[in-house]
């Protein structure tokens, strides 16, 4: 069943058209890799779903038109992990994760038992309990990335949008993170992550959407989307591709001489 539906979405920033006529159907349980060269419109697509950039066309979430949702209602449906890992103050890891409950709290009310259980679950899931009392600013980049994902998980929304969640992480942390996102999807959420690492996109995602110059260039399983021809025409690279038991292996090798 479709959870997020985009029909004929268009986004212009200033006089520049960034997304053109994008239509998509995304269901629960899917782990979608949003791929494409720099400037293709991946981040803008995620932001337009959140209503952070103005768009024309229709976006519906859980069968409700997005325009009809208040900011708070939308936040209960969609969690978001921005590309910049901004942490403004030296708050504790525990407090930072608890921020995820913001859209579920009314007025000046504090956290109830249910909120605490969800926060604890997120902390366990991202394996950050050992530094829960430390300041989030004192952590390494990899630790911070996990804490911020735990924050998004604590929002307990059925759809998670993550903008380049693996950037700046070492291989072990990348694998750990992609594995968590895949688990989240297999538990029934929908996950959309924009990714530059085609290898890990092919390894972990159930479906890839390739964006090129503001339009969907391909949409399907990693095997269908990542062809040598597309990597040449869209990314401008020659790549080594091999199908193995772990799925498709992709390794860009060289630039194509122009």
């Amino acid at each position: 069943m479709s959870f997020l539906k985009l029909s004929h979405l268009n986004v212009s920033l200033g006089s520049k058209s960034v997304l053109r006529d994008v239509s998509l159907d995304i269901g629960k349980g899917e782990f979608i890799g949003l791929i494409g060269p720099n400037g293709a419109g991946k981040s803008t697509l995620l932001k337009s779903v959140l209503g952070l950039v103005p768009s024309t066309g229709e976006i519906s979430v859980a069968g409700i038109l997005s325009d009809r949702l208040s900011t708070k209602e939308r936040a209960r449906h969609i969690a978001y992990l921005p590309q910049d890992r901004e942490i403004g103050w030296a708050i504790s890891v525990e407090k930072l994760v608890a921020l995820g409950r913001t859209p579920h709290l009314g007025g000046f009310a504090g956290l109830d038992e249910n909120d605490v259980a969800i926060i604890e679950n997120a902390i366990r899931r991202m394996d950050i309990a050992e530094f829960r009392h430390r300041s989030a600013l004192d952590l390494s980049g990899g630790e911070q990335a996990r804490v911020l994902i735990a924050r998004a998980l604590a929002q307990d929304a059925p759809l998670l949008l993550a903008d380049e969640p693996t950037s700046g992480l070492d291989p072990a942390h990348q694998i750990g993170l992609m594995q968590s996102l895949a688990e989240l999807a297999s538990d029934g959420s929908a996950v959309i992550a924009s990714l530059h690492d085609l290898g890990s996109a092919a390894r972990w995602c159930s479906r890839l959407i390739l964006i090129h110059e503001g339009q969907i260039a391909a949409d399907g399983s990693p095997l269908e989307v990542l062809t040598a021809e597309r990597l040449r025409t869209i990314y401008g690279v020659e790549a080594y591709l091999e199908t193995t038991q772990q799925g498709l292996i992709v390794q860009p090798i060289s630039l194509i001489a122009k």
Partner: protein
Amino acid sequence: MKDHFRLLLLGLSLITLLMFALSLLTGPAAVSVSDSLNALFTGQGDALVLVMREIRLPRALLGLMIGATLGLSGAVLQGYLRNPLAEPGLLGVSASASLGAVIAIYSGLSLVFPLALPLMALAGAVIAVLLVQALAGRAAGTLIIILAGVAVSSFAGAMTSLALNLSSNPFAAMEILYWMLGSLTDRSMLHVALAAPFILVGWALLFSLGRSLDALTLGPDAAASMGISVKRVQLIAILGTAASVGASTAVAGAIGFVGLIVPHILRPLVGSQPSRLLPVSALGGASMLLAADVLVRMIAPGRDLKLGVLTAIVGAPFFLWLVFRTRRALI
């Protein structure tokens, strides 16, 4: 953690209460504590009643309200702009309120009608805020707001200088200068009544932002994705600051550094959580300003040492230390 926070609130409330009492009991008239309090509460003791109720009470009340305003608005602006160097004067409110007051003094309006001064100052603050909001636009980044505030502050400062420059009456120029130094001397209950409504409305607006400021710790996009309307937060922060700081400047002149320093000193005590910093900073600001106002009367009795001068003398070195520490953190 929860008990620790309550204890901190309780402790700061007690300190504020103590400073308030100390402010009531400080003055050139040498009277005993019991006589003073007796006069204040029972209204018995003719001249002393006048001193307590008409001179010291409004002074202490203004110290309390203005100190809390500076601490609270400083904490809100630092949280909203996610910048530890933000302070209430940043939005151009103080400079423009000063300009309004200067126009009242310069034109002679304040001689004819004494309340013209605070009223003009308030008008100055309102105009500044409308300008900053118009310059910043609907969903501006924090940088644009800071730049707009700097532009409005500079212009108001330039116009104030022009008034001083062209003033043909040295007494008016003197009065302008003195007023701008910031003071709580010789304020009446009328000043309290004039400022209180604006200050209370400002507080209500600023206190409502706690949860939004917590979410903004992770940046505006993350906050928006958590259901916070960043546009609304901007509007409320600006209006709340304008009402409370505008009214404060209108009755007491520009008092610097309290709004910058107080949130800084107290931030580590609340685990840097912006929402918890709000009540704590309000209490801290109130006790600091009341203490400073007691000090100016004790250091130089009869010389009318200006409150704004004292806060700047203490505040500037602290600011330097802050810059130093920030630099060290960057290296």
